[in-house]
Structures are given as structure tokens and as C-alpha cells.
């Protein structure tokens, strides 16, 4: 109860406007016909609290799609590292995406540390938002155990009736709450309603795939030669959508560009995708993953196998974005089910 406060829903607009006076606030808003995106807002008006999932995850604020990292001057032989960062309040992050940000933290805090990421991250205040129901049928957050919050936020909002019950998790979060002066302390009734919601969620969120959490890794370890990869490889067109929208994909390319004076220029880092044909091509033209099926196998092993060995956690959040964004209709849950079926078949015969 200590760390729980209440914000009336009717005060959300004031809350956002107050913060937006001094900081950039980004929140989920509708984009296009049936999509959503995190965008800058100055009031609560455009925020869509019932959003399903955004096209791109919030990683775009931590690891921008395109980022200048060095400016150079050939004549002066000068190389200047550059860092772009700004103070941002990131509002409305679902629990799966909180987990995704934690995954990126692990990757970029490893030695050698990525200071651009870390410094940018330090200036972003994260406000989570609880899902009381599934966003849509593509989600597999219960399989990945991400339907409930597990840290990684400054404040966490749970919407109940006419109010938000807010978990204040950090000093920065507390400062923000105090500054707005709009919140009151939670009482016993709030706490018991919060508990009721959690109970109700246990009946709503059920493992979406017929395999226990711990068995996921062995499933992938033993499926290196699976025919499922060939079948997916036939369908995949290597558009790279599944990796670009994934909250835990972080691979990037480095591009040097020169200005028209043919003297000064910039080095930028841009998102790359293991699904691009040339991703695993090395000098001499050798390509380690020429086949589309191999590339998909690699992508999923980078979610369900390799990171478990290295960091003892899965790198899939269960957000369902890869399924939503696949133009070829390749579905993550169907893929896992196909691997399970194949395994059963092998065991029985």
C-alpha cells in the first residue's frame, strides 16, 4: 500500500498536460485504420488506453532506427563521437514491452558497454500500463509469463473503473507524481480491487501453446534439422518486418556517409535484419545463411535458445508483433505448435 497512489481517470488529461509542459511525453495513439504507434502527445486527448499493440515497440526511443554516432572531418583528421538524447516520459507501456526493454538493457550493458544506449535510457522515464485482457489473438505473453508486471518501470498504471491505481517504483517516479499533485494515497478498497483483478487475469491469460515454459528451449535445441524450417522458408519473402517490429531485436548496421564537400561526413547506425539475404554474407561472397528457412530458424533460436544459454532468459516477450507484421502470414504460435507436433511424431514413431 505504501507505494500505491490513485489518479482519477478524469485527471489523466491534466496529468499529461502538466508533464508535457517541461518534458516530451510519448504515448500510444491511433495510426492508420487499425494500427497504433507511440508518438509525442501534449495532452491526454490522443492517447488510446485500449490500444492493442504498436507497430514498432518502444525500442525506437532507446535505439533509434537511424542514429548518427560519429561526425568526421578528413582534412583535420578529426573524429567526434555524437550522442543524441532527450528527456522523455514514455507513457502506456504494456508488460510484454517492459520485458523487451529489460532485454535490451542486458544487451547494451554488456562489455563493451553501449554508452549511447545507456545515456539515452537514463533520460527516459517509463510508465507501464496493465493489460486486463488480451490485446488480440496473436499474443503469447502467458506462455512467456509476461502478462503481469515484473519491474522495469518507474510508475505502473492499472486501470480500474474510474481510476488508475499506480505503483510507484522509483524515486524519479515518485518525484513526477508529487510534482503533478493530482494523486491521492490508495486505501484498502483499492488494494483489494487490485487483487481481484489479478485473480480474474489468471482465468483470462492461459498458456497459449501446449508446452510448459521450461521445455521451450529444449524444443528449439532439438529442432535444428526440423522440416518446419523448410516449410517456413518456402513462405517467407525476407521482408524483414518480423525483426524490425520485435522488441528484442537489436542488430544494426554501420554506414559511413560523406557530405558533398567530399571532406566532412557522418557515421550512422541503422537497424539491420537477419532476414535480409546479405546479413550473413562475408568478404569473398560466402553466405552462412543463404536459405530463408535457415534465417527464420536463426531468428527464433535468438529468442528461445541462445539467450537462455547466455543470459538465462528467453528473448521473446510474447508480444505477437512478428505474427501481426508478417506479410506472408507466418505465425509464431503456429510455428511452435508445428515443432511440438513434429516432436510428438518423432517420439511415437
Amino acid at each position, binding site marked *: 500500500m505504501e507505494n500505491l497512489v490513485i489518479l482519477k481517470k478524469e485527471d489523466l488529461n491534466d496529468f499529461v498536460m502538466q508533464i508535457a509542459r517541461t518534458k516530451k511525453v510519448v504515448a500510444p495513439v491511433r495510426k492508420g485504420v487499425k494500427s497504433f504507434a507511440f508518438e509525442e502527445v501534449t495532452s491526454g486527448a490522443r492517447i488510446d488506453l485500449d490500444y492493442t499493440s504498436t507497430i514498432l515497440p518502444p525500442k525506437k526511443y532507446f535505439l533509434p532506427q537511424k542514429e548518427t554516432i560519429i561526425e568526421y572531418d578528413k582534412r583535420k583528421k578529426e573524429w567526434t563521437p555524437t550522442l543524441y538524447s532527450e528527456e522523455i516520459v514514455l507513457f502506456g507501456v504494456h508488460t510484454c514491452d517492459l520485458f523487451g526493454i529489460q532485454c535490451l538493457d542486458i544487451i547494451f550493458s554488456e562489455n563493451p558497454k553501449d554508452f549511447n544506449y545507456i545515456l539515452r535510457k537514463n533520460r527516459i522515464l517509463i510508465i507501464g500500463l496493465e493489460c486486463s485482457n488480451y490485446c488480440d489473438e496473436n499474443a503469447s505473453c502467458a506462455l512467456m509469463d509476461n502478462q503481469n508486471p515484473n519491474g522495469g518501470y518507474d510508475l505502473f498504471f492499472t486501470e480500474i473503473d474510474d481510476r488508475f491505481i499506480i505503483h510507484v517504483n522509483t524515486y524519479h517516479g515518485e518525484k513526477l507524481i508529487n510534482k503533478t499533485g493530482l494523486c491521492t494515497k490508495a486505501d484498502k478498497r483499492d488494494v483489494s480491487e487490485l487483487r481481484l483483478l489479478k485473480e480474474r487475469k489468471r482465468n483470462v491469460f492461459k498458456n497459449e501453446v501446449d508446452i510448459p515454459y521450461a521445455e521451450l528451449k529444449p524444443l528449439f535445441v532439438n529442432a535444428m534439422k526440423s522440416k518446419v524450417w523448410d516449410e517456413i522458408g518456402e513462405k517467407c519473402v525476407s*521482408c524483414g518486418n518480423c525483426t524490425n517490429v520485435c522488441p528484442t531485436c537489436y542488430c544494426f548496421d554501420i554506414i559511413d556517409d560523406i557530405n558533398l564537400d567530399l571532406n566532412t561526413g557522418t557515421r550512422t547506425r541503422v537497424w539491420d535484419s537477419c532476414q535480409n539475404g546479405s546479413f550473413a554474407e562475408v568478404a569473398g561472397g560466402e553466405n552462412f545463411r543463404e536459405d530463408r528457412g535457415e534465417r527464420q530458424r536463426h531468428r527464433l533460436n535468438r529468442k528461445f535458445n541462445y539467450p537462455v544459454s547466455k543470459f538465462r532468459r528467453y528473448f521473446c516477450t510474447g508480444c505477437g508483433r512478428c505474427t501481426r507484421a508478417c506479410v506472408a502470414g507466418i505465425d509464431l504460435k503456429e510455428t511452435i505448435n508445428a515443432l511440438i507436433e513434429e516432436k510428438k511424431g518423432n517420439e511415437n514413431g
Partner: protein
Amino acid sequence: MKAKVAFFDFACCEGCQLQIANIGEALLDVLDKIDVVEFREVMSEKSGGDYDVAVIEGSITTKHAIERIKEIRSIAKVLITIGACASIGGVNGMKNNFELPEIKKYVYGEDEKYFDSVPTMAVDQVVKVDYYVHGCPMYVPEFVTVLKHALMGLPYKAPEKSVCTECKLNENECLFDRGLTCMGPVTRAGCNSWCVNNGNICYGCRGMLDDPAKTGQIEILKKHDIPLEWVTNKFNMYNKAKDVKENENE
């Protein structure tokens, strides 16, 4: 010494040259580096001689054009094609959907015999091309990039990945989700998903990827109940010239 750059046009709408004239301020920076020796859209002065860079717009559609492009190639150190017509044949390639005499008659009527015409070819179907700037019209930032590479003698290759990769980075709502058919998944990137950013489908003007995943693409069409011919027609719009075999026109 400034590099001598010449612009030549063949069968096209000259829209790409217009794009260059429209570059605006950056054009002044470009002009700082180069001497434009022939350029119909923005200059009237002409001068013969050797060129450091020849920039070619338009596709090759006549015997005369074949001779002319060979001559240009022989006196140019570097040759750049700009726009779909020069780089992949472009819309002029649609002529190749018909028998040549038949289409000549359709276009020129009785006077058909006075016109010199061969099946449409991209420039690289006649001479060696060093750099390509794709698109219809070409994408200006790519032209500037290619020019810089050419001036520094560095190689440049258009990205061998799909328009989708750029489209997703721009966080556009996928047009398939709006019930439209988009050529993005099989079209070569490099235009920063120009059309989708502006609310249109990608109609494949930068040409098909070298390795466009045919089976996957057919699956996508099935999924959305779209007839295959519809898409082949779309792609024919830009890619048909490439059906002409080497030396077929000589």
C-alpha cells in the same frame, strides 16, 4: 580540377532530369564539385569531348540510340544510369509485350516504315554501367549518394533488401492491413518507402529484388485472394525490358 559531367537523355519523360533541377540548394553544392558540360533541362550550352561522368536517362529503343550510347560510353570514364528507364528499361519496356511490327503500326500507323524502332532495352543491355540510380522518377537522395561515390571512385550498390524494411522503420501501417496489395515485399529498397509514406502503395518502380522469393509471394497473393496476373502486370510495367536477350537488337 572539377569533374566534367554530362547528362544525356534517351527514351524517357525527362522527369528524372527535372528531379535534378529540383534538388535546390544541394545542387549548388554539387555544382561546386562538377562542371556540367551537357544538360538539356537546365543548360543550353553544349560541348563535345571526353567526360569524367556521363549520366544517362532513358531506355534504348532505336538503332540510332544503340550507336549513340556506345559512343558516349567510349568517351566517358564513368557511366551512371538514372531512373527506371535507363536502369531497368522502365515503362518503355511495356512495348515488348507486343510484336514489334504490330505495335509500330499501332503507334505510327501508315508511316510505320519510316521509324527506326527496336525492342526496349535498359542501358546495361547495350553497354557497361558503373552506377545505377533506380526509381520512377529516381529518388534524389540516392542520386546525390551515387554521385559522391562516383566522384570518390568508390563502389555503390543499391540495398538488396525489400522496400518493407524501410517502410517498417518509418512505422507506416502496412497496406495489406488495409486490404490493398503492395509490391513492397519484392521491390528493391533505397527510396525510403517514398510512396507508402505518402499514402500510396509501392508499385515496384525500383525493380524486383535479385532474389524475390517467388513461392512466398504467390502464397501472399493467395492469402489475399489476388490474381497472379494482376501482379505480373504491375511488374511488367517496369521490368519487361529485361526479357530482351543480349545482342538480340544488334
